[in-house]
C-alpha cells in the first residue's frame, strides 16, 4: 500500500438504528523520529496527527494521534446508524499530507 491509502469497513447488513462498528486503516509509516537508518541517518518524525470522522455531513468524532500509534494505524469505533449517508474519514499528517476515504451507510432492505 502506498502512503495514505485508506480503507473503511462497515458491516454488510445495516438496519436503521443499528449500533455498527466501523473499522478503518490507513497506510502510513508513523515514524517517531527516534530511529535511524542502517547507515546512521536519523529518520524524521512523520506521523498522522489528526483524524476527522464525518457522517451524513456532520462531524461525529475527531482523533488526535501521535507517533505512538502503530505503523499503518488502525482504529475501530461505533456509530449509531440512524440515517443513510456517507461516512468520511480524513487523516492529516505532520507534513501536511491529507488522506481521505468514504464509505456509504445504506440500510439493507428488510
Amino acid at each position, binding site marked *: 500500500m502506498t502512503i495514505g491509502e485508506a480503507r473503511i469497513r462497515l458491516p454488510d447488513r445495516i438496519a436503521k438504528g443499528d449500533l455498527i462498528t466501523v473499522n478503518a486503516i490507513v497506510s502510513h509509516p508513523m515514524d517517531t523520529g527516534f530511529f535511524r537508518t542502517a547507515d546512521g541517518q536519523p529518520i524524521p518524525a512523520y506521523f498522522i496527527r489528526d483524524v476527522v470522522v464525518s457522517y451524513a455531513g456532520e462531524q461525529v468524532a475527531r482523533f488526535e494521534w501521535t507517533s*505512538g500509534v502503530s505503523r499503518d494505524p488502525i482504529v475501530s469505533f461505533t*456509530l*449509531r446508524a440512524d440515517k443513510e449517508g456517507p461516512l468520511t474519514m480524513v487523516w492529516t499528517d505532520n507534513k501536511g499530507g491529507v488522506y481521505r476515504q468514504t464509505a456509504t451507510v445504506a440500510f439493507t432492505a428488510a
Partner: protein
Amino acid sequence: MPSRRSFLARCAVVGAGLIGGDLLGRSGRLLAAAPSLADPGDPEVPNEQVAKLLKDLFGDRPIRKGHLSLDMPVVAEDGRIVPVIIESDLPMTADRYVKAVHLIVDHNPDPHLAAYHLTPAIGSVAIQTRIKMKRTTWVRAIIDTSAGDVWAAYAHVNVSLNGCG
C-alpha cells in the same frame, strides 16, 4: 481449555478479592494518611510530565476508577504493536455523553498517546487500536464526560521489545 478471556476474568475476580480484603484491613489508616481521592489500587503518577498532563486535562476533578475497561495484553512481546481495547458502559445520549477518551502511556517519550473526541452520534465507547510502547509501564485510559465526570481504567503491560526507538 479455558479461553484467555475467561482466564483473565477469573484472575480479575481473584485480584479484586485480594484488593478488597486489603482495603478492609487498611482503609482506616489510608483515609487518615491520604487526603487524595486516589484509590490504593491506582498506579502511582511516575513523573512531573504525567502529573502535568493529568492536571491540564482534568484540573482538580477526581479521577475515579469505573465505567470503563482497558483491555491490553499483560505481556507485549513486540512494543511496536500492542493492541488496545477501550470500552465504557456510559450512555451516549444528546444530553449525557462521553466527550473524550484519553490514552496515556506513562513511560513513553510522549505519554499522551491519543485523544478520541466523541459525540452522541458515535453511540457507545468501544475503541480499538494498536500502539507503541517503549517499556514496561502502566497505561491509563481516562474519559471525560459532558457532565464533567472523569473515569479511568488502568492496565500494567510488560514490554519485551522496545517499540519506540
